[in-house]
């Protein structure tokens, strides 16, 4: 039915077809492996990006917390300073009033008291 002269061509065609099928099978496998590898790499990159974003967010949150705590401490320091200065001013008012009561009619004692605090000499006519 088929001419004998066609056999060499048929054999050649069959060999080519065999090579094509084998090559396509190989390329399919390589392509599948490559895409699987790409998928894993991109998954790893996504995980890394998520972790870094979380770390940066945590860092930002901690910085804000620290700055807020610092502001509170500054305020507390200032309040403590103002409280002590206020107490000193109140004490001064009381002390000055009692000093006036005790010394207003006695210049010598007044001068001696001032001399004791300042170290100035009290004038004794010389």
């Amino acid at each position, binding site marked *: 039915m088929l001419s004998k002269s066609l056999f060499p061509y048929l054999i050649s065609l069959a060999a080519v077809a065999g090579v094509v099928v084998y090559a396509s099978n190989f390329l399919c496998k390589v392509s599948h492996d490559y895409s699987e590898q790409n998928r894993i790499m991109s998954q790893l990159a996504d995980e890394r990006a998520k972790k870094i974003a979380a770390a940066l967010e945590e860092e930002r949150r901690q910085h804000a917390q620290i700055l807020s705590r610092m502001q509170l*401490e500054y305020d507390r320091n200032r309040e403590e300073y103002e409280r002590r200065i206020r107490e000193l001013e109140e004490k001064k008012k009381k002390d000055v009033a009692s000093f006036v009561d005790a010394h207003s009619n006695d210049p010598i004692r007044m001068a001696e008291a001032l001399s004791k605090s300042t170290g100035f000499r009290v004038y004794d006519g*010389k």
Partner: protein
Amino acid sequence: MESRLKKIVSGILIVSLLTPSFAFADTTVPASQEPTIAPLNQGQPAPWPGVLLNAAAVGSVKFDKDHEKEKIDTAVQKAVSDVITQKSGEIDILKASFNSSLTQKDALIEEKDGQVKTVREENEKLRDELANAPNRTTWFGLGFIGGILVTVATAFAVSQVSK
């Protein structure tokens, strides 16, 4: 004799005119020499020109002098507390940044480890496939047989059409 007397008198006058008067000023006033307080009763003359303080002013000066150390200590304490707050805050901020950097670095290392592991696995797989390679003959054979069938079928179809 008279002219001699005149010469002596004029000499004395010239010397007295040329000699500065402050050289003979009273040196008993202490105000310009050392800090001195003069207690004064009302109406009593002041021994030198100066400032007269009432009892409240004296009390105020005395209090300020007595408590100046306390006032300075309070200011210094506040300044020190502020510096401690600032420095400890800076340390905490640096610690937080450092920990964040460590976490980021760990994430990067983890990713690289994963990549290395994946590539190694892939290499192993390829090596195994290359070593075994059992499918080459099978697929080639299947392709060959398939090719024969397709070619025979094509040739048959062509011969039928050409008849």
